[in-house]
């Protein structure tokens, strides 16, 4: 049985939703970061899935793009973790609800 593109999209959507829910519902800042990472990868998956629907010569673009995204995501994770560590040093807490400096 051929793998239907729609299944891939459904999977991507599920992963994205899980990532989003994790990011929004967990208080631990590391979980939030993981959730964002998950959502990002879901997008990658979606890219590849759509690329598969195209003829072979054009689908290359869709498959290369996630590679870039992975590189960018790595950089983003780097910066994100560095920030988290700095905040942790200042605040002694990984609870994102404690980060409320911006409020009035």
């Amino acid at each position, binding site marked *: 049985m051929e793998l239907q593109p729609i299944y891939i999209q459904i999977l991507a959507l599920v992963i994205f939703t899980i990532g989003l829910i994790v990011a*929004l519902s967990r208080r631990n800042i590391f979980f*939030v970061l993981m959730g964002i990472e998950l959502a990002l990868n879901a997008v990658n998956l979606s890219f590849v899935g759509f690329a598969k629907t195209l003829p072979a010569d054009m689908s290359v673009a869709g498959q290369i793009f996630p590679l870039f995204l992975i590189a960018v995501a790595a950089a983003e994770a780097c910066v994100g973790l560095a920030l988290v560590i700095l905040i942790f040093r200042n605040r002694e807490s990984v609870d994102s*609800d404690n980060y*409320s400096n911006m*409020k*009035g």
Partner: protein
Amino acid sequence: MTNLPLWIIPLFPLLGTILLGAIAVISSGSKKGPSEGFVGALSVLFPVISFVCVVLLAFGMPEEGIRETLCNWIDIPMLKVDIGFLFDGLSRVMLLFVTGIGSLIALYSIGYMHGDRGFTRFFAYINLFLFSMIVLVLSDSLLLTFLGWEGVGLCSYLLIGFWNHDLNNCKAANKAFIVNRVGDIGFLLGMLCLATLGGSAILNYEALNKFVEMLIAGGHVELAAPILMIAGLLFFVGCTGKSAQIPLLTWLPDAMAGPTPVSALIHAATMVTSGVYLLARLSRMFVLVPEVLLVILIVGMLTAFWAAVAGLFQNDIKKVLAYSTISQLGYMFMAAGASAFDASIFHVFTHAFFKAALFLGAGAVIHSLAGEQDMRRMGGLIKKTPVTACVMIFAFLAIIGFPGFAGFWSKDLILERLYTNAPFGEFFYFAGLLTAVITAVYMGRLIIMTFFGEYRGSKESEEHIHEAPASMLVPMVILAFGAVFAGYLWADSMGIKFFANTLAPVVGEAQSYSLGAAIHHVNALTFACFGTAAALLGMIIAYVVYGRARIPQISAKESSAPVGSKADWTFFFDYIHEIFITITKAAAFIADMVVDKILQAIQWTVGSIAEIVGDGVSTFQVRKVRVQLTLSLLGVAALVAVVLLTGGLF
């Protein structure tokens, strides 16, 4: 000889200013300061060179004068003015005595300012003053004259406040500058007023005269008269400021706070007469509006009388001379008001000699008494300082118009012209004569209180009294000679009219226009007799009242200012000025404490409203980052939904 360029005259004092100013600034750090001999020599050298240039030019001057345009100054659509010089009969006379007396007084100052901390600075200012004064009288346009006009005012400010560690001097200086500024605005607006009539081109004297001629030739004087009248009045306001006439005269007595040579040079001989110079320079314009001339005449008369009476009440020797200067300036304005411009300039000329001599003499007296200015602590000085006393007495005879002395010729000429030329001539003549009597009284009082009788100061100070050094005496003696003989340049009753002929090309036409055909022929001798009688009467009164009266000893602390009703008379115009000052202060108070506070209140209200609203909105900022993130995602979703449903915003 005549191919000397004109700009060389102001050039040297300017060089002197820059050089001396540089020396003053550079040496200000050092304790000792530069050598006084060197600085003194420099500071006399530059005015003297100028004087020599003026003399050389004066003798080779053609009848119609020398004109010279140096370069363009301002060139914009509505205003085109050149920097140009005009050397004619009028500026020749003015320049000769400005540079001449300026050089003498610079020489005198070397002795007077000896050992002062600001020795170099003083001479830098003096040179700057001479530069401005030369520009004032040498320029060929009103705007350049205005440069000199404000320049001399500035120097006057700097020199009055020369001893600036004492705030009273600074206040006197500020007063002089601000009162003069009021007059200067009149001058400025007068120029604008003229410019509306004929464009900025007629700010040039020559063009102005041509314009006036055109008006007369075309018979359009009536058309232009209203504007000319406003312009004339505005210029006269400028003159009242600079020449200390009613109502802007309060600054001159206070200006005596400066060093005495400054009072002699600036506040007696030269700067204060620039108002008279301006009237003579613009005589062609002024004679078109006889109403303005009448105003000048009345103001001059009131000033002369008021200041002469005020002079009677003063105890400070320099204040007496200051009020006397104001009174004499009143004479000059009366003459100008009677369209006898040449007589007024002649009085400027003779007055420069005798008043400078009087001031320098007073300076020598103050110098010898170590700074004492109150006449009630003087007396009997003729024995201690005979040369000074002689100089003062000669100048005294000149100022009261004793026959043969300089003042006799010029003052009698003015009185005679008042009688013949002015409307209600008899009235003004008698007012002038009365003032002449008072002049003799207060000057006689000054001489008697200073030089005759017993010395009334403390015993210790009596031993230190000494005659001034030679560098001070020489200029005084030269000026005293001037005070005796300067009048013979125009001895009407002896038939010598040299001075009148010099000025004729400048003011002659104006005067003949004003008088028309009706020239009274009067016997000059009669007037001379009346004048002499007035002088003698004044002297006798002075002798009777002050010569024999015992002047009470006064304590050391008592101030020299007049008190009681005398003070009311003296400070009458100060009280009037006080009203304006109070109004300004009240306006400033309202601006600061009312208007500004209201604006601040509005500002504060707006600010607090914004703050309150901000506080309200910030409660939306829930504490948890996660919730905010959720909300923002929902917002994105809503936006996407809207875009999808409406097909785009744009």
